[in-house]
């Protein structure tokens, strides 16, 4: 078993969890932590901005949409919250954003891409396309016990 000191030194694999009320107020802290950890893993600045935007987007969607309909809101005994886990591993960053709101059929949601939205000058619908564009993996899953989880993965490119 590694000693505390070994674990402490081994900074590239760490896990951070944050659970906040479901409110846009907290997103700036989430972004700040996110970019700090991405920097620690070694991502270049422009990819840090991308990761930050993708995660901000995932959380914004929880605040905006996940608890929107109280009919479909499956876990009514719990307070609406955002729960996020960031794992920094050597070579990649794994972020999971979890909510207990309504399920969303993410996989079959295939919106027009950013360019098509821009052609029509649409004022919204950029969130999910940006997330898919900026992250290497984007997966949504639903579970009766643990709620809905959006998993975002970004790999460090070898240079």
């Amino acid at each position, binding site marked *: 078993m590694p000693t505390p000191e070994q674990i402490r030194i081994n900074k590239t694999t760490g896990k951070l969890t944050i659970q906040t009320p479901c409110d846009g107020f907290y997103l700036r802290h989430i972004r700040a932590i996110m970019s700090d950890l991405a920097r620690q893993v070694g991502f270049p600045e422009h990819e840090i*901005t991308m990761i930050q*935007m993708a995660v901000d987007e995932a959380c*914004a969607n929880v605040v*905006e949409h996940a608890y929107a309909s109280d009919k479909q809101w499956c876990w009514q005994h719990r307070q609406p919250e955002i729960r996020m886990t960031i794992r920094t591993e050597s070579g990649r960053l794994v972020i999971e954003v979890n909510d207990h709101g309504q399920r969303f059929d993410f996989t079959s949601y295939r919106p027009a891409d950013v360019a098509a939205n821009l052609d029509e000058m649409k*004022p919204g619908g950029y969130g999910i396309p*940006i997330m898919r564009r900026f992250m290497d993996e984007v997966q949504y899953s639903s579970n009766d016990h643990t709620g809905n989880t959006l998993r975002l993965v970004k790999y460090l490119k070898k240079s």
Partner: protein
Amino acid sequence: MKPFQISHTERGAVQLVQVGGALDMHSFPRLESELRRLFNHGHHRLVLDCEGLDYIGSAGLGALIGFAKEAREHEGDLRLLNVPPHIYRIIELLGFTKVLQVHTEETAAIASFQPK
């Protein structure tokens, strides 16, 4: 992590709107109500000075497109000024700079509205 700030000054027939800090889903309603207010007063020629902007999320980007579209329908436009490099790089990559005019000089941004 500066708080979002918005203010505005008149430059002839053009409204110069300065924004700073983070334009995210939390601060975004403040941008929206400020631009809506200007539209309601018949101002449709807007320059958004992004000099102090740290962050812009997709809701903010979408709003810029929506307001630019509406402004154009009233013979105006929404144009950007002083976009910080890290934000410029992202919005260029996404294609927003093909749809929105971006300027690096205030005088040029204001003059771009003058009839030739």
